């Protein structure tokens, strides 16, 4: 069996008539968006949230640990910072392609690149927050008999929190946008409808997916602000 198949007699389905707006590729076709929400937008949105949360969580664990070590051993701060900055400057798209031979067209490839991207921001934010704790505060804490660990947990980290939270906010918002490029590797996340709308131009899909990404960034940012407020009640001004 080989060669060109003999032409059969296919039943050609009637796919109905699309609305004027869809056929003419109008700026934004609300009817189509509502129709397609559950198949074309909801699953990628969920995938996108997954991707970002995993990347920021892993990035935070690594960067936080590295910052604590660098804070204790001052001579490490320079080299660690340089490594993190180097990883940050790698163009994500190039990194995706470089990783594909090793880790395949998988979520793992995407996450490695996204994590690399978050490290430097979180690392610097944690380190800066710790470095900004006033000396006399630390001295009085030690004077009250706190050991190194208690000092870190009860004094230094709480005072560094606002800086850490602001680093997390920047890293998260950035990851939301960089994660759209993941569509070059896996057919997942909000980049997927964007990429497909590029190769088969359709404004509505483009705008809808883009707007969802922007919205998602705002929501994450807002949530982190709220978390920060809850964790640092002493920053609220009392009238």
């Amino acid at each position, binding site marked *: *069996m*080989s060669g*060109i*198949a003999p032409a059969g007699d296919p039943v050609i389905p009637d*796919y109905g008539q*699309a609305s004027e707006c869809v056929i003419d590729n109008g700026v934004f076709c609300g009817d189509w968006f509502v129709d397609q929400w559950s198949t074309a937008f909801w699953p990628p949105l969920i995938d996108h949230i997954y991707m970002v949360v*995993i990347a920021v969580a892993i990035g935070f664990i690594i960067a936080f640990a590295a910052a604590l070590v660098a804070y204790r051993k001052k001579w490490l701060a320079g080299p660690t910072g340089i490594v993190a900055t180097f990883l940050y400057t790698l163009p994500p798209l190039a990194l995706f392609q470089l990783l594909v031979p090793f880790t395949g067209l998988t979520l793992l490839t995407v996450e490695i690149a996204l994590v690399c991207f978050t490290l430097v921001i979180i690392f610097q934010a944690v380190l800066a927050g710790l470095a900004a704790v006033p000396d006399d505060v630390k001295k009085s804490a030690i004077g009250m008999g706190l050991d190194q660990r208690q000092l870190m947990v009860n004094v230094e980290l709480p005072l560094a929190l606002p800086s850490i939270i602001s680093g997390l906010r920047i890293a998260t918002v950035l990851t939301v946008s960089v994660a759209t490029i993941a*569509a070059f590797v896996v057919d997942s996340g909000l980049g997927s409808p964007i990429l497909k709308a590029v190769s*088969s131009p359709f404004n509505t899909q483009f705008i809808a997916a883009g707007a969802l990404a922007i919205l998602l960034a705002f929501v994450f940012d807002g949530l982190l602000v709220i978390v920060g407020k809850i964790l640092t009640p002493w920053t609220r001004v009392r009238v």
Partner: protein
Amino acid sequence: MHKLIGHTLNRRRALGTLGAVGAGMAAAALSGCTATTANLGGTKSGAAGRRITVGSKGFAESWIMGELYAQGLRARGYQVDLKTNVGSSDIINTALQSGQIDIYPEYTGVIVVNWAGTDTALGTAEETFDIATKWENEHGVTTLQATPFENKNAIAVRKEFADEHGLKKVSDLKGIGNFIYSTYPDNVSGAIGYEGIVETYGLDNMELKTLSIGLNYQAIERGEIQAADVFTTDPQLLRSDLVVLEDDKKLFGFQNVVPLIRDDVFHDLEGDAPEFLNALHSLLTIDAIQALNEASAINRIDPAQVAKVFLQENGLM
């Protein structure tokens, strides 16, 4: 329903892998990670697993073909992962060779020109198919029957531009002064790419602008380019006021779609899978594929839905 189950399974697998790797992530990030791909992108062979990964290329027609393969195979009891929009011919072919995908639809002319390295103009679709099959078989890949429809590259110009310069065939572009032609980035070199056209037709006056597939229609309407590389089955082409120039030197060859299946995967398939793929391909006439493309690219119905309706109405699922 099948699709849903497939999705959650995939995600769980992916997350499990991530969790396992999370611990070593710091080292991985620095060293480029040493995880093997065997359990990440690859598939288990053997009748018990019967997991198949289907891939598709970077444009709507290929997405629909990928969905047709995936849903039809799922209906026959295979566990199918579908990787849509994997990318250019070179990327997806590498993915097939390295076991990251098992099956994908490819165009016979692409195989012949890109990899089999045939420079001579080919006489027939059959001959093109034979050379493509021979090359694939030598590289550990089995092919089945090709579709009756062809989707080949062509050069299109605006009707006004054609009238103004009296253009009917590609040769007529010679000596009309400088003009800009656009094609997608991985179609610049090679026999049917920009360089091949310039060489074969002696078009030294043709300048190049690379654009992603699909952006050329807007560009030509706005007058940013004068000639565009188009696909003959593209519904946008049928709806536009563009004129396709006759390929008088038979440069663009023949482009029927053939399923490429890696040998080791093919040996694990039951008889019903090849049977289904052949039956499906024989139904994909030019009318059928144009209707499917139109449903996806004009009506904007999700390719999965487009494929499902076609398979159901033709009794393939």
